[in-house]
């Protein structure tokens, strides 16, 4: 053995404390979040609130055209100006938040549901099932996600459900890998062996013994996948394969306003800032959650 490992082993899992401490109070968890992450959480809640309340706080309809003249600069009536069709940019950005949060949240939930389930099964099964499953996922993961997403969404025709399912399933291989690694850390633990000795079924062991211990990993994975989904869904919409028009969508807004940048930058800059801020917020929060749950580094 060489003295002192030069490269730290990758941390495969973010285990929660066993048994009694499992149901940790939410307040306790919040207290352990780094300040930046707490700020990010606050901002994210504000974004969720703003898009949920869009029908009440948005000054105009997001899809009604010529509520102002085309490409008006920001004014007191239209705080972020108007787009090429004279629609209110602020209203479209607010409603676009709904599209972004709902689509990426659903996609990430799908990823964690399928990837988490597969990861638990593969991790607990081991052997040939595990080997074959991981190979198949590895191969699927080796196609660049933008390209595979383009092919599938292009073939099926862009619609909100198609985009959610495609983006959600595309991230399954990497989620499976992470959850499987986390689950593997527990399959040889005493409490799992004890459950096995009691004659509990595989499903019961995966559900009652392993799942609670990988809950932290699942939460972090959900956060990571949400940020990733915002980017990929935004890119697809930008390329013209997102929610069909006139649905207010940040990626699509950037694409639509591109041709008129010389006349007004606001129809492009506002959604671009929104998408950048959302991903940054989610990433800072993810980082904080991982730190709060993981061992001190």
């Amino acid at each position, binding site marked *: 053995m060489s003295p002192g490992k030069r490269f730290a082993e990758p941390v495969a899992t973010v285990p929660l404390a066993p048994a009694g401490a499992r149901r940790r109070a939410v307040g306790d968890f919040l207290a352990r979040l780094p300040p930046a992450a707490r700020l990010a959480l606050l901002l994210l809640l504000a974004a969720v609130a703003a898009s949920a309340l869009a029908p009440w706080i948005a000054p105009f309809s997001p899809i009604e055209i010529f509520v102002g003249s085309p490409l008006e600069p920001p004014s007191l009536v239209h705080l972020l100006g108007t787009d090429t069709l004279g629609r209110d940019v602020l209203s479209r950005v607010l409603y676009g938040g709904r599209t972004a949060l709902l689509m990426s949240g659903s996609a990430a939930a799908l990823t964690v549901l399928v990837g988490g389930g597969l990861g638990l099964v593969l991790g607990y099964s081991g052997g040939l099932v595990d080997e074959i499953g991981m190979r198949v996922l590895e191969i699927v993961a080796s196609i660049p996600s933008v390209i595979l997403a383009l092919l599938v969404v292009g073939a099926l025709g862009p619609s909100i459900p198609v985009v959610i399912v495609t983006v959600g399933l595309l991230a399954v291989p990497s989620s499976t890998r992470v959850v499987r690694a986390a689950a593997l850390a527990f399959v040889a633990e005493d409490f799992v062996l004890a459950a096995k000795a009691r004659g509990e079924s595989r499903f019961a062991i995966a559900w009652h013994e392993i799942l609670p211990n990988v809950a932290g990993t699942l939460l972090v994975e959900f956060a990571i996948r949400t940020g990733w989904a915002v980017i990929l869904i935004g890119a697809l919409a930008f390329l013209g394969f997102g929610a069909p028009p006139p649905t207010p969508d940040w990626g699509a807004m950037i694409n639509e306003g591109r041709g008129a940048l010389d006349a007004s930058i606001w129809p492009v800059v506002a959604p671009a800032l929104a998408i950048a801020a959302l991903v*940054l917020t989610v990433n800072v929060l993810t980082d904080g959650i991982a730190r709060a749950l993981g061992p001190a580094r």
Partner: protein
Amino acid sequence: MAEVASRLSGADPVLRLVLRRILLSLVSFFVISAVIFAAVEILPGDTAQRALGREATAESVAILRNEMGLHDPAIVRYGRWLGNVVKGDLGVSMVSKRPVADTLAQPLRHTFLLGALVLAIHIPLSLFIGVSCALTRDGPLDLALSALVLVAMSVPDFVIGIFLIVVFSVELGWLPPLALIDQANSWTEALWMLVLPVLALNAAMTAYVVRQTRDSMIEVLNSDFVRVARLRGLPPVRILLSHALPSALGPAINAIALNAAWLVGGIVVVEAVFNYPGLGRLLVEGVRFHDVPIIQAIALILSGTHVALNLAADIATTLLSPKLRTQTS
């Protein structure tokens, strides 16, 4: 004696591991070709109908279906397609009616040029920033760069591209907003057009390598052998260049190769931002017009490159890490 023996037995598993990885990559490439074929051909919509448009009579669709051999089962068509690809025949574009190979030649060169330029800047730049961060660990430079890196990592590549256009083309008027290098009159004009796309891709990629380089460099700087070198009174520059850097390079090279693989997808989106006449733009157009042979060929080329670069990352890691271990023990 014992050392020689351990080296001999040590070399063999590494070689076997590398061969195994190459074989696996070939298998994935075949499976990928099948996935691409399936995604484009088996999913809904009739290729012949799409090629002729909605107005086409049932008769002409039937004739084209026959010509295209669409009556054969999917597996037969897949075999025929793959056989043709291996022979170098990529088919004929359904939109331009030109051979796909001819249509792709120019965009392929453009995309390769863009990718090569991006990497030529990416590799030295991100290594330099990463090492600088490690040397000034937790100092103002390190903190500022780390924060910048986190921001750059969060902003999607196409959004970075848009911001660059807004600032440098629309507001300042320094650089062209579109990179139509096929319409450039001179080399310098073409190069000028490439500045923003190269910047956008670099901004998106740098973060990851900087992080990896910084972290592995910090570990190496804290390791015993660098400490010994310092105690021996070697000049800091020499410790850095001939001791620390070579050891810290392993994870950095892996990160660079993974980044190059990421670039394959990133380039598709960024080409669309700047209307760059490369494979990415052609792919997006192909998907829009359901030009199946074009889509299949480009997806195959890009995915193949992606697999090859991931393979390179794996092999680099495999070859570099045992060497690092034997050096330190």
